[in-house]
């Protein structure tokens, strides 16, 4: 076995996240799918760090976590505010902006 399997797993997770973003209608679930994508990337980064023999990948994964945390806060705040306005977090209900 080689570390490539980790990368394949990562690619699979990333794709599942992508599909999730495209098919799910609930804003929070969509957002969770995006988080899954970020996690998949982290797995890749950690694996590449090992393949390349440097810790940069791990540092980057760490940065991704920090960024993701901040993103989660902002994202959930926005979703909360729109939920309060319309009492629904479905992406489909957010359709005023269609022409």
């Amino acid at each position, binding site marked *: 076995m080689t570390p490539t399997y*980790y990368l394949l*797993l990562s690619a699979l997770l990333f794709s599942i996240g992508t599909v999730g973003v*495209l098919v799910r209608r609930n804003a929070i679930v969509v957002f969770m799918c995006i988080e899954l994508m970020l996690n998949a990337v982290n*797995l890749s980064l950690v694996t590449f760090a090992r*393949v390349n023999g440097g810790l940069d990948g*791990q540092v980057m994964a760490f*940065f991704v976590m920090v960024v993701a945390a901040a993103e989660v806060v*902002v994202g959930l*705040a926005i979703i909360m505010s729109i939920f309060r306005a319309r009492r629904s977090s479905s992406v*489909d209900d957010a359709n005023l902006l269609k022409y």
Partner: protein
Amino acid sequence: MSTAALAQAATDNGGPVGLSEAIAFWILGPMALAGALGMVFARNAVHSALWLALAMLNLGALYMAQQAPFLGFVQIIVYTGAVMMLFLFVLMLVGRDSSDSVVEAIKGQRLAAAVLGIGFVALMVGSLARALFSVTPIGLGAANGVPSGNVAALGRLLFTQYLFPFELTSALLITAALGAMLMTFPHTRTTAKSGQRATVEARLRGARVSPLPGPGVFATANSVATPALLPDGSVAPESLSEIIETVPPSAPAPLAPVDAHALVGADHAKSDRISSGEEAQP
């Protein structure tokens, strides 16, 4: 499989993947995958979040298996512990229609997304496999080893090589805090805060001196979703909660005499009703 053992296994071998790691991978990997799939397919958003937490936990363990113990713990503590809990928290707040509709908004969108996803998987897997299967990893033995281990080495990188992005993340965190307050903090008051005297006067001169009836009071159930009934058996509108969906007062007609009676006695009947908890249903 304890995480400590995994971390141990990880530090043992430098580059190539050993047997113990392979076993760990073939257990954790499918579980992570299952978590991901479960998240996408779960109809209920809370279930989705839990599935995602499963996937993240497994990923954390995989990090440890890959000589990244610090990241593994951060993943479990910060990501799974804090971020996912934040998700769950918001889901509970927003939870009213957290289950997804099955209706497709755009015709054929699911199919298209699935095809797209499978195509993307094939592309990525194919290219990665072609590009990397023959590669032997260098391993992190050197980088993680001397002099002070993984965490210190990461810290060293963070404050030298990645100093600027590290400082820049502070802007990110401030933005996040500011934004959360801005978007969700309810409106501040427009008038001066009224003192005790004013409150008392308002209460005494207002339409109602007594406190509002609680939901469920005088009624047959003590669920907050059940309205209070007035002595004549009609619903007391003041008792309706602003934030909770109220169950319509079911079948009040037969209850009216019974209830009036219940006020003075019939302990058995009342306790039965309360314990059954389904009284409100017709």
